[in-house]
């Protein structure tokens, strides 16, 4: 089976506030799922749950080990002493893998080139604009050779050109069998990708 994600009867809550209520979702290799819904409906909560950053209070989650995640908001210090390349490289780390290989470096270079940030690779991250930083986080996710890619509103802050580039890169990943979940508010994102589905979250449930 080419199943990249299998979520069964998942419940995710913050204290008493049940945000995801008995949701099941299967995603196969090469599939693109768009997740939509109004602000506060639980899109980020669902992706954080799938990323393993929030516990399921019930239900089961099975997914590819090789997962990359681009959060809606990066929960890290912008002031952190690091350059773009160092941050991008961290996307190649995995459990049981302590050192970067040649291949990791090539992947990082490729990802930076694809997202047009190769000329920024030695810049300190605190000197970047919001959209440039966004592309750094996308490159970090891409260079980890993901089988499952979770993108939480990746296009927020991207210019038209970067947006087009991103979709080009995603098409290539899909063709190579990666499964992608993307949270988006833009109707225009929803068409134009083959083999894609749109799911909407409301009232804690998903509707296709």
């Amino acid at each position, binding site marked *: 089976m080419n199943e990249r994600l299998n979520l069964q009867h998942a419940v995710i809550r913050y204290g008493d506030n049940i945000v995801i209520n008995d949701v099941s979702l299967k995603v196969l290799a090469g599939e693109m799922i768009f997740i939509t819904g109004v602000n506060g409906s639980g899109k980020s909560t669902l992706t954080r749950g799938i990323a393993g950053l929030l516990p399921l209070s019930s239900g089961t989650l099975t997914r590819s080990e090789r*997962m990359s995640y681009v*959060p809606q908001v990066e929960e*890290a210090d912008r002031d952190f*002493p*690091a350059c773009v390349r160092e941050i991008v490289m961290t996307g190649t780390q995995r459990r049981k893998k302590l050192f970067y290989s040649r291949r990791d470096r090539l992947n990082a270079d490729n990802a930076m080139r694809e997202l047009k940030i190769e000329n920024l690779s030695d810049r300190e991250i605190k000197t970047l604009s919001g959209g440039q930083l966004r592309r750094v986080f996308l490159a970090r996710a891409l260079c980890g050779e993901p089988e499952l890619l979770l993108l939480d509103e990746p296009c927020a802050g991207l210019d038209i050109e970067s947006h087009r580039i991103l979709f080009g890169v995603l098409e290539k990943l899909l063709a190579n069998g990666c499964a992608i979940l993307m949270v988006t508010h833009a109707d225009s994102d929803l068409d134009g990708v083959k083999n894609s589905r749109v799911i909407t979250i409301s009232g804690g449930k998903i509707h296709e």
Partner: protein
Amino acid sequence: MNEILELLSYPFVIRAIVAGSLISICASVLGVILVLKHYSLIGHGLSEIGFASLSIASALKVPAMMVSTPSVIAASFVIMFVSQRYKTAGDIAIAIASSAALALGIVISSLTGSSSNTGAYLFGSVLAVSEGDLIFAIILSLIVMSAFVVFYNRLFLMTYNEDYAHSLGINTTLYQLMISVLTALVVVSGMRITGTLLISGVIILPAVTAKSLASRFKTLVIISGVVSFAAFIAGLAVSFAFNIPAGAGVILSNAAILISAKFLAMMIKRK
């Protein structure tokens, strides 16, 4: 000159220099992680708990390390996890725990009549470095250095963004524990030289100095270690020359370096 040579002929002086330098370097490189993760208060909290544990050990008449080591390690776990889970509440928890521990230590020492030791604990003493302490310091620094070499990429990622590390499938709790235990061991072994009141300064000050001079994690770690080593030697020299407690000398040298570094950084930015 002759006086210096004479001092260096005493084994306890050599022990103090070697053990103190190694512990200062370890403290300062771990300090980079703690400062960048906004856990600066941890060293302070742990040292107060260390003080209480020293008082308890002397009241029970058991070797100090046997009580301090496990209690400070346990405290470091609690503090790390509280800080991580409750963010700002972590600061409050550390403040409460550390003042309570300090008070407890003072009560125990005065009740058991060992309050003459209190001064030695609070201000430390270079005379306190035994051969065992020296060996402990050497082993500890080997562990800390190898941890930085082997786990460098992990420590970098963990310090930058722990959630992201977790999403990559990395066992972040394990690295959290590693940082906690190493910090606790540095505090336990360092507090007897610099005193429980000042060991947290040895952890934090060099890292803050390095932060104003460097813009890459790796350079920060290196500068922090070098600064801490230099400040320790300078502080020890000052303390011998003026017959003041070593810990105070070390912290003042660190503070002087920090102020100069900030000044230098300001001048460079101006240009």
